[in-house]
């Protein structure tokens, strides 16, 4: 993450054959020392909206609007967010399928931001993509053999033992039969087609594979097969993945680190455990609390749930300051005016928020909640009694959710103990220590937060709610209009394509 660590990486072991699935937890910890494969800085992608006879640009859809991140060798970076947050565009820009509007992309230290098509071609070997739609991404008129061997032809690579043999080896690698060589895509099911897409992506032994929703079009059981396959291939071939997905459960399963995107920005970037156990950004928290848990017993135990109201604002005219302030329940004046920077508040956890959860408030002086904040979310507190109920009612004024966090909050005093218990499972003693520390810290901040929000509560009572509601409504209608514009723009774009 930090610069010093990066320079250390020169003598770090390149995890070619390493990283067995079981070691993933460790590898995530150790990934700080790994070589940076891809570095993205200030990346922007704006799609112009043109109108009139002169096709003058009147606005732009800011699909990706200034994001920074790194991908290290051998790790899996998960990217999540709602539809329209720019995650797919980001994937297409870092593979240079689309040209960025601004910012830089460095691959293995080389700036590839504005390489020409010809200069980019040799690099295409190292950066490959797996697409979402296994039906749309295979040419129906080509046989599987010609689809999977296309990369060899295009790159002029002659694999050892001939192209056909290599293709058949690849087919076997992804769990298909070599006899499928002469068949056509329509003869295969969705899961099998996705495997073909994976075989094609792996043909040239890429270093980086960007997978855009690789399993979302598949059935649950097939989804698990493909997830396992990608896992195995990573450990066998030392692949680095950027996996873009909207399914937070899948992302939790496959990723070492996760970036959460909202309206073209990364709002939180953290390793898997920190993100899911103690999300800092309110959006991350809301997103996670919305995921249905496949356990009916949790229905009652779930003490609170954050229900975000409404839809994502339009990326044409994103809200000022923090983009999430229109839907956030912690939003204050500063959120409206100042954009929060992406800061590393805890080792390995970056967040862009003025009032993060599970961390010290970044703008403690600013405690007056925006009027919209109160209405931004609806808290679902089930009537059933749960062990945390007393706690929950005490906290009712303070919006809390996502039960891992609630569990932590509820056990404020016991936090260190809990952290220790958690760490018991971990092999690493050092890890245990840091986690215990984290537990302490989070307990403290939790208490601090409770105070802050109590203040805010008092202040808020004064505010006249009704007037603001009206204002919010007007806002909403403007937004809706902007939205339909965006939809139009989108359509235009797709027809252009």
């Amino acid at each position, binding site marked *: 993450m930090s610069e010093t660590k990066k320079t250390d990486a020169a003598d770090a072991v390149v995890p070619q054959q390493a990283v067995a*699935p*079981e070691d*993933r*937890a460790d590898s995530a910890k150790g990934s700080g020392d790994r070589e940076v494969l891809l570095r993205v800085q200030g990346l922007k992608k704006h799609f112009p909206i043109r109108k009139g006879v002169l096709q003058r640009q009147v606005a732009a859809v800011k699909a990706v609007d200034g994001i920074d991140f790194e991908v290290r060798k051998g790790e899996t970076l998960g990217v999540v967010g*709602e*539809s329209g947050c720019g995650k797919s565009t980001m994937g297409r820009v870092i593979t240079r399928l689309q040209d960025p509007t601004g910012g830089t992309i460095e691959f293995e230290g080389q700036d590839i931001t504005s390489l020409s098509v010809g200069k980019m071609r040799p690099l295409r070997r190292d950066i490959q993509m797996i697409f979402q739609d296994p039906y749309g991404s295979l040419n129906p008129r080509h046989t599987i053999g010609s689809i999977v061997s296309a990369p060899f032809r295009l790159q002029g690579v002659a694999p050892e033992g001939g192209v056909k043999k290599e293709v058949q080896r690849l087919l076997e690698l992804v769990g298909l039969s070599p006899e499928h060589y002469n068949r056509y895509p329509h003869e295969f*099911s969705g*899961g*099998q087609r996705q495997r073909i897409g994976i075989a094609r992506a792996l043909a040239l032994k890429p270093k980086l594979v960007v997978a855009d929703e690789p399993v979302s079009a598949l*059935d*649950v*059981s*097939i*989804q*698990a*097969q493909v*997830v*396992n396959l990608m*896992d195995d291939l990573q450990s066998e071939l030392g692949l680095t993945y950027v996996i873009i997905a*909207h*399914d*937070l*459960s*899948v992302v*939790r*399963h*496959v990723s070492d680190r996760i970036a959460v995107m909202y309206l073209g920005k990364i709002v939180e970037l953290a390793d*898997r*455990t920190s993100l*899911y*156990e103690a999300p800092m950004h309110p959006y991350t928290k*809301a*997103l*996670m609390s*919305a*995921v*249905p*848990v*496949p*356990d*009916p*017993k*949790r*229905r009652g135990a779930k003490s609170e*749930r954050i*229900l*975000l*109201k*409404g*839809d994502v604002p339009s990326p044409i005219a994103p809200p000022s300051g923090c983009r999430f302030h229109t839907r956030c329940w912690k939003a204050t004046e500063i959120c409206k005016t100042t954009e929060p920077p992406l800061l590393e508040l805890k080792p390995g956890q970056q967040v862009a928020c003025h009032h993060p959860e599970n961390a010290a408030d970044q703008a403690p002086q600013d405690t007056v909640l925006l009027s919209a904040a109160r209405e931004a979310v609806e808290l*679902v507190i089930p009537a059933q009694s749960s062990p945390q109920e007393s706690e929950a009612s005490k906290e009712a004024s303070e919006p809390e959710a996502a*039960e*891992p966090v609630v569990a932590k909050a509820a056990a404020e005093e016991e936090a260190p103990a809990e952290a220790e218990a958690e760490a018991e499972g971990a092999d690493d003693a050092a890890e245990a220590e840091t986690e215990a520390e984290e537990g302490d810290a989070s307990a403290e901040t939790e208490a601090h937060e409770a105070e802050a929000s109590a203040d805010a509560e008092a202040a808020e009572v004064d505010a006249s709610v009704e007037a603001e509601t009206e204002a919010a*409504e007007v806002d*909403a*209608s403007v937004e*809706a209009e902007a*939205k*339909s514009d965006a*939809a139009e723009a989108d359509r235009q774009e797709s027809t252009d394509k």
Partner: protein
Amino acid sequence: MTELSKTGAAVGEPVSAPSDAPSTFLEVRDLKVHFPTDDGLVKSVDGLSFSVEKGKTLSIVGESGSGKSVTSLAIMGLHRLGARGKNVQMSGEIWLDGQELVNADPDEVRKLRGREMAMIFQDPLSAMHPYYTIGSQIVEAYRVHHKVDKKTARKRAIEMLDRVGIPEPAKRADSYPHEFSGGMRQRAMIAMALVNNPELLIADEPTTALDVTVQAQILDLIRDLQKEFGSAVILITHDLGVVAEIADEVLVMYGGRCVERGAVDEIFEKPQHPYTWGLLGSMPRIDRETSDRLIPVKGQPPSLINVPSGCAFHPRCPYADLPKGDVTRTVRPELQLVGSGHYTACHLSQEDRTRIWTEEIAPKL
């Protein structure tokens, strides 16, 4: 049809006297929906029985091609409409509030559709007419069943749009479907489905195309509306998370048949069928961290033209060789009672199932 009657003996457990009207609100008995095609007879639904009480939610779970959607369309009587009664073979009974639907006059069914039963589809954009405004489509749905003037109907439409949480309903009623976002469209569709206060609501993958945050909104909405109107809900989904969130009862379908059915707690705590285990093992969990591999069901879902003999799941079942002889390959298992209200169709003995679940599967989940 003659072919159907031959296999007609294979029926789920609760069917004892198929001709008398049931006491439950919706009861489906030995439903079969077959489509003759050039390649052979597609047995989309092949002997399915279940019932739903008012105020309860039944979730039908299964992979694509397991017959979930065909079942819901059969209940709505939409198969015959599309195929003009020629290209679909249906048998069995569907009782809705004391009225049998499979053999009923299509005009009678049409009167019920919308008023007694309504449906929410997966993709609201293609389920709505792009040429008419949201409001006018709801007005139409209301006036089909109520003799009221347009003004009253419009008032009712706006009231419904408001109820499902669409801001400025009076203004948005004049919008076209494409002007709505995915979540708003789904809300509008729910408003349209509920405008006549139907007593049965069928939701076919209502949230699959939506983001999790919107999904949570829609699920809550469906739950609230169900409480308010006391309707029976059939929710078709492949997401076990959604099932755990909203269902009272679960029906797991495989190859056009029910392989397991029971209360939601039973299904998640003591699942009895290897396919249900497979579904649970395939799901990555958001609520816990595991670096272990998922435990997928191997192989592909079966073709509904050549459904495997015996137990349809046997080619994919890791325990198919456990029962003695080749019973799994030759005999189709019937639903049997394995717990209170909990049925499963599996040849494994009760002891084997309990042992495999508690020792082999549950610890890995």
